[in-house]
């Protein structure tokens, strides 16, 4: 052992003993691109806060949801910071499971958060979770294919135009499918898309007395339209395609259009991942002239469970991860196009971002156009565009999603799917006590 290794060893021993007194935050998070990027950039945080160490639990979305819900509901105390969606925040906050984020520091600038996103996370005037990124949905399309077919995409298309264009573009022999839409069963998969789309068709989940509405003509129109369109112009295996599967299809040039989350925009325009990066255009989610566009509103947020022993450190971390400086940090290291979108007004006012992200304006317009408090054409008793913010919705949405997925796969007719959706929703709502 020479002197150098000896010194190194001593240094690391000292460092280790220093770390032993550090506070360790356990953070549960989802395995999407922006979160993983944050994980890699945390050195910036730990070097500024040497007394805080971070431990990551990165899980696939569904597993994450199960883990954090079980933990918070049983007060298991496994996590100091949880990544949760817009759906959970109001439900959990009402239960008193989350701490209000009052102390994010002077530089945090809460008023800079996009109003639509912020209002979904605010209950009784208090912010219960800080948005890490936000999204709505919009149309992504291939400009080259549209040009070839002699079509022009309007900024605010109708569903009729979309369907017509999809059928024209489709060339199954060349493996070009006019439109890719979600079909995989799940309340956050096909039901997110279909619930939002049904809004545009004038449908709603429940009437003012919590009576399910799947037996109404609006749902039939919406589902019929979707199934026919996908059969004519969708890719094979659409009933098992979720966000990811469609993203792969679009990136490999197999989709003419794709209506999905606005965050996808940065992936499909990234030349490192996408073979069609320079050929993508954007438009608002389509409508049917009834006054609602089928664009949803979602954000992944960081929240602190009530009863946490490490509130101060957790707040420091959340302020870092969702603050303005973090956006700057990502921009410096990976370019403006990779900054987590959809949370801050200042980002959309930044000319550098506008230049680097051709989808910026469309994303902002889509987010601003979403109205979770009045999602449907007709009045509804619930909040949420692509979900119904009641605890029962995860199970319900998934069960209904399975029926619709079966209709898409051709395993049952649209009428059968709607009838069993109606039946099972009525059953569950009766059991849960909404329908007396």
């Amino acid at each position, binding site marked *: 052992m020479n002197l150098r290794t000896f010194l190194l060893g001593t240094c690391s021993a000292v460092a280790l003993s220093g770390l032993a007194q550090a506070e360790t935050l356990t953070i549960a998070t989802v395995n999407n691109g922006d979160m993983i990027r944050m994980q890699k950039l945390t050195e910036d945080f730990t070097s500024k806060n040497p007394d805080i160490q971070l431990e990551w*639990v990165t899980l*696939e979305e569904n597993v994450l949801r199960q883990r954090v819900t079980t933990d918070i509901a049983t007060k298991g105390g496994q996590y100091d910071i949880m990544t949760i969606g817009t759906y959970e925040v109001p439900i959990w906050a009402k239960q008193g499971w989350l701490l209000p984020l009052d102390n994010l520091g002077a530089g945090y600038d809460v008023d800079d958060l996009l109003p639509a996103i912020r209002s979904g996370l605010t209950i009784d005037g208090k912010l219960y979770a800080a948005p890490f990124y936000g999204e709505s949905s919009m149309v992504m399309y291939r400009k080259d294919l549209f040009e070839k077919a002699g079509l022009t995409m309007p900024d605010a298309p109708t569903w009729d135009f979309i369907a017509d264009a999809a059928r024209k573009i489709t060339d199954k022999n060349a493996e070009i499918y006019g439109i890719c839409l979600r079909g995989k069963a799940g309340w956050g998969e096909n039901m997110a898309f279909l619930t939002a789309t049904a809004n545009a068709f004038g449908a709603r989940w429940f009437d003012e007395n919590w009576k399910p509405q799947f037996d109404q003509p609006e749902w039939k129109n919406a589902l019929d339209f979707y199934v026919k369109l996908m059969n004519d112009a969708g890719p094979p295996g659409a009933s098992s395609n979720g966000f990811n599967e469609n993203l792969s299809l679009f990136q490999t040039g197999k989709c003419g259009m794709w209506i999905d989350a606005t965050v996808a925009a940065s992936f499909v325009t990234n030349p490192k991942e996408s073979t069609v990066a320079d050929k993508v255009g954007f438009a608002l989610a389509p409508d049917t002239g009834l006054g609602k566009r089928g664009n949803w509103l979602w954000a992944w947020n960081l929240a602190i469970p009530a009863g946490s022993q490490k509130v101060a450190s957790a707040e420091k971390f959340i302020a870092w991860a969702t603050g303005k400086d973090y956006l700057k940090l990502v921009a410096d290291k990976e370019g403006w196009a990779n900054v987590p979108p959809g949370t801050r007004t200042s980002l959309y006012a930044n000319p550098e971002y506008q230049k680097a992200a051709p989808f910026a304006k469309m994303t902002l317009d889509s987010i601003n156009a979403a109205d979770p408090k009045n999602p449907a054409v007709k009045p509804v008793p619930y909040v949420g565009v692509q979900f119904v913010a009641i605890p029962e919705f995860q199970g319900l949405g998934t069960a209904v999603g399975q029926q619709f997925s079966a209709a898409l796969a051709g395993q049952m007719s649209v009428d059968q799917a709607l009838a069993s959706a109606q039946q099972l929703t009525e059953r569950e709502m009766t059991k849960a006590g909404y329908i007396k």
Partner: protein
Amino acid sequence: MARNVSTQRKIVVTVVAWTIGILIFFPILWTFLTSFKTEAEAIASPPSLFFFDWTTENYHEVQSRSNYFLHFMNSVVVSVGSTLIGLIIAIPSAWAMAFSPTKRTKDVLMWMLSTKMMPSVGVLVPMYLLFRNTGLLDTRTGLVIVLTLINLPIIIWMLYTYFKEIPGEILEAARMDGASLSKEIIYVLTPMAIPGIASTLLLNIILAWNEAFWTLNLSAAKAAPLTAFIASYSSPEGLFYAKLSAASTMAIAPILILGWFSQKQLVRGLTFGAVK
């Protein structure tokens, strides 16, 4: 002439057997190969079997994202620990059942196996509450306890079938020589039972290594084994076949290698008393 026919036959058998063997193995081979491709090559059509630019990029990516070594160590500790404890509890029981059987021995054995039929997911919340109250959440100890209990019936069953094959006369002889019960176990029985114990050990390490429900749901950061590691690669955004393959290879390689090196013991262990 006869020799000739048998050689010919041997060649035919070899070809058929190898073809089937490779077909069965193919999904694993394909995963392994894909883990060295770029994401674009992973879904390229036509796919290439060997002739692509081999890259270890995916492994770097996976390693930079998650602490493989921590998960690996947790898997080792949990699977080996639970198997060893299980063996310590099971050996006396199996021994007693094999050498002093009563009328109810079979029923007890069957009852033990039937405890494995409870659907774990139905008792998750009770277990989670129990673990929270005892402070066992996200600890290796907690996982070891659960896996020991889950695999105990299988361990007892396997050991029982081995012990039964040990001729009783040898024990008689030992007793005649005045060996005490403990000596009987240590000096006479154990050496004869070691192969059986080794097989049981192997099979249960494999079962424990691959158990994905409890290990995932009762751990968070500190005790999470490789099953939890995989859960962060199952469907991320964007192209993920190559990264998924790399993570899969890393999760299954240790146990695959262990299984291969000890396949003789393992194969013998798999008989569960089916062969007399």
